[in-house]
């Protein structure tokens, strides 16, 4: 029973009229019920079967989150094929590499832009490109192209076909190949089986009592493992509704319309909401700001009592209830969080300020820890755990152990291996345990604490401990700082390159009537430098309190002329900074930070314009 096809047939049998998927299209939420989904999948599967998709065929899915995309997942699965989701923003060499790394022969793409990107790759192994949106496609004559809607014409829905296929499926079959994020090491294609994904999703659903009445938002790029798990797999296992936003720009608005009960988001999503709110408060009237600040104070007091395990006084508690009812209930409503009963985050460390904020205002935010190798989720924090350091306890039947400071895990959710790479597989799986390349420790309650990537934790030049991941999380806690990387391995002292959050820094600058022309100009402004310097000083003070970390105080910093960008390969699709790439790309700037120079001039390869970045001493 542990295949996605079996789950689909079960949902169609049990809840044929319950909404399975919704996609906002031309301003309307188009709903597909489980019954309709089953019929459509049967049509799709027959078409794909005619096209030559069969057991073990890697099938690329290249486009935004939409009903058709997820239904195609199921159709491919019903034939025993392997779904290879591709980030819809990829192009050029990156796209070619991904297509090649998993031997994709058939691709479903969304529109002209995706078809163009694929055709520009030149000679690849792709034999067939299907496209959904016909706009602008009239003049394409390439033989491998085919219109998706046309290809389905004349095929009758047949549940019998799916049932016949179900007999041939096996939970051990590979369901998908997903790329690792490539933050530490090179990207690698990871094979995940139906069984692994389904048992991981079941384990979460059981623990959090997720049912078909729940509703979630599928907005992360398809290529991200958390989308496969927390949207697709979770919905298949529980029968809950998956909602696909209209476009990348409308996610917040669509969230408000849907009011999801479950939300998974990498830390940047929560930081975004947090910053967005602070920004609006910053530009609000003085009276409103005062009320908001007082309410925040009230909820934060009780939250910090809980985090420390203490008890709040009766008056504190009264204030807390009042603030939640009057200020934060409407707040949640504005952001579409009122119905949210489970908010999950993972993939990167969330800053304590953001975590505490959401917990305090009444959002049950939980941290998860996992990697693609473990179906994106290995541990899950419990609701009672108010400590943002911990990522919680392992899922059912999953074990975590620490060896030489490195985290290893094993359980039903572990990967089959690295696609067509036995050596890498052997390196990753030893005696049934999967390595994570992350450092961490387990506490006395069995909760995992993650310290960061092993490869990055090292020593400073004087032999003192150096934990860049921890420093970066601290820096990012400041709402004006969007991204940060810390360098210092083998050097005398650590330095940092940060980028500021454009929206909130602009509001801040406008209130102070600063003059600037654009982002680059603003980031180099003396006042912004001072703002960042002051914050780094407070970080240093915190570091100085603990003798273990006092050697890690930051001495110099630079505020970059632009944010780290996905198109430049500097961040992953979930906006985690690829430290290695950034260090390589900004080698000159880093060297300048280790000199006495007060500014650094370079030509930015992104727009080929010259920029002068001021270098600050803390």
């Amino acid at each position, binding site marked *: 029973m542990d295949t996605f096809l079996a789950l689909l047939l079960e949902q169609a049998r049990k809840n044929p009229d319950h909404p399975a998927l919704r996609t906002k299209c031309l301003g309307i939420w188009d709903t597909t019920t489980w019954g309709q989904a089953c019929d459509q999948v049967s049509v799709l599967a027959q078409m794909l079967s005619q096209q030559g998709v069969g057991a073990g065929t890697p099938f690329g899915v290249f486009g935004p989150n939409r009903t058709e995309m997820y239904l195609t997942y199921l159709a491919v699965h019903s034939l025993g094929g392997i779904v290879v989701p591709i980030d819809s923003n990829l192009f050029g060499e990156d796209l070619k590499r991904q297509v090649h790394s998993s031997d994709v022969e058939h691709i479903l793409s969304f529109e002209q832009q995706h078809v163009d990107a694929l055709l520009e790759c030149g000679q690849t192994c792709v034999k067939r490109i299907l496209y959904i949106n016909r*706009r602008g496609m009239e003049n394409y004559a390439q033989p491998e192209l085919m219109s998706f809607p046309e290809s389905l014409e004349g095929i009758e829905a047949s549940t019998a076909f799916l049932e016949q296929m179900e007999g041939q499926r096996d939970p051990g079959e590979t369901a998908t190949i997903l790329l690792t994020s490539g933050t530490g090491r090179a990207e690698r294609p990871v094979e995940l089986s139906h069984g692994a994904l389904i048992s991981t999703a079941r384990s979460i659903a059981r623990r959090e009592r997720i049912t078909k009445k729940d509703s979630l938002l599928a907005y992360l790029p398809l290529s991200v493992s958390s989308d496969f798990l927390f949207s697709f797999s979770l919905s298949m296992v529980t029968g809950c509704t998956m909602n696909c936003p209209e476009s990348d720009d409308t996610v917040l608005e669509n969230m408000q319309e849907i009011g999801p009960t479950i939300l998974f988001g990498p830390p940047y999503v929560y930081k975004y909401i947090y910053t967005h709110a602070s920004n609006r408060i910053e530009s609000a009237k003085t009276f409103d700001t005062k009320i908001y600040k007082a309410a925040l104070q009230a909820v934060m007091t009780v939250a910090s009592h809980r985090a420390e395990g203490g008890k709040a006084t009766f008056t504190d508690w009264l204030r807390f209830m009042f603030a939640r009812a009057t200020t934060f209930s409407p707040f949640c409503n504005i952001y579409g969080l009122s119905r949210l009963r489970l908010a999950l985050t993972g993939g990167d460390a969330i800053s304590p300020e953001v975590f505490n904020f959401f917990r305090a205002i009444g959002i049950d935010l939980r941290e998860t820890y996992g990697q693609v190798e473990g179906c994106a989720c290995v541990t899950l924090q419990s609701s009672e755990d108010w400590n943002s350091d911990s990522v919680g306890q392992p899922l059912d039947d999953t074990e975590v152990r620490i060896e030489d400071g490195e985290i290893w895990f094993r359980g039903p959710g572990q990967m089959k291996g690295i696609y067509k790479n036995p050596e890498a597989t052997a390196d990753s799986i030893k005696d049934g345990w999967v390595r994570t390349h992350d450092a961490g420790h387990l506490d006395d309650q069995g909760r995992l604490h993650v310290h960061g990537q092993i490869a990055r934790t090292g020593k400073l030049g004087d032999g003192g401990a150096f934990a860049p991941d921890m420093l970066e999380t601290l820096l990012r806690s400041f709402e004006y700082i969007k991204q940060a990387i810390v360098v210092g391995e083998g050097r005398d002292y650590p330095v940092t390159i940060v980028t500021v959050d454009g929206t909130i820094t602009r509001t801040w600058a406008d209130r102070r009537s600063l003059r600037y022309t654009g982002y680059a100009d603003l980031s180099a402004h003396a006042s912004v430098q001072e703002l960042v310097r002051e914050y780094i000083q407070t970080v240093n003070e915190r570091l100085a309190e603990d003798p273990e970390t006092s050697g890690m105080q930051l001495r110099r910093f630079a505020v970059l002329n632009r944010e780290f960008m996905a198109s430049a390969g500097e961040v992953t699709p979930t906006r985690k900074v690829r430290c290695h790439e950034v260090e390589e790309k900004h080698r000159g700037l880093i060297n300048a930070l280790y000199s006495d120079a007060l500014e650094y001039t370079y030509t930015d390869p992104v727009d080929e314009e010259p920029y002068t970045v001021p270098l600050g001493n803390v």
Partner: protein
Amino acid sequence: MASGNSILQIDDINLAFGGVTALNGISFDVAEGEICAVIGPNGAGKSSMLNVINGVYVPQSGRVIFRGQDCTQMRPRQIAKLGMARTFQNIGLFQGMTVLENILTGRSLKIRSTWIEQGLNIGRARREEVENRALVEEVIEFLHLQSIRKTPVGKLPYGLQKRVELARALVAEPTLLLQDEPMTGMNLEEKKDMSCFALEINREYGTTIVLIEHDMSVVMDISDHVVVLDYGAKIGDGTPDEVKNNQEVIDAYLGVTH
């Protein structure tokens, strides 16, 4: 996309305001399906030309023939009904209304139901409402306006307002689209987007476009046909390459003593 049949013929137009001659014997043809740019220095009479085409100004002499019909004496509303839409140099949107409402106003000429039907939401009114909204949504998707559908136009930056204005012109399903300086005041990125939209509209809907533009690189990139005006007279007419090498045009742009 140009097919060779002319959709718009401008025949010896003379327009004067009191003693000032704005247009002096201008004639040119716009072929069906082409993008035609009207360029010229400040005060050359470009906007007046556009105003004559869609009936805002009535010329003292000469004829404007649109799809075989002489529309020189027609009012703008009648001309719009023939399938001509335009955008303005100084954005002409309802600042207090949302993007969606503004774009819907572009459908007003196509509405057949009476106000009684609309007030009671019965009969044709209901069906039309749905049809119009569907068409508007398609244009919203085409011009990527989804995220600002419900934002009041007054709150939007200039570049987006221009795009909303274009959307409003498009929902009228024009065969000829007039754009008065669609890219002034835009940054490079916005200009690029706008040029792409012009090309896509032209290719996708087969709409003929007549536009006034200052940015030479844009004009040379997207237009099939360029008409150059200077002091109310036509001094150049041809493909972008022909115009670029025309001595009179070079003089007008670089400036020689008159």
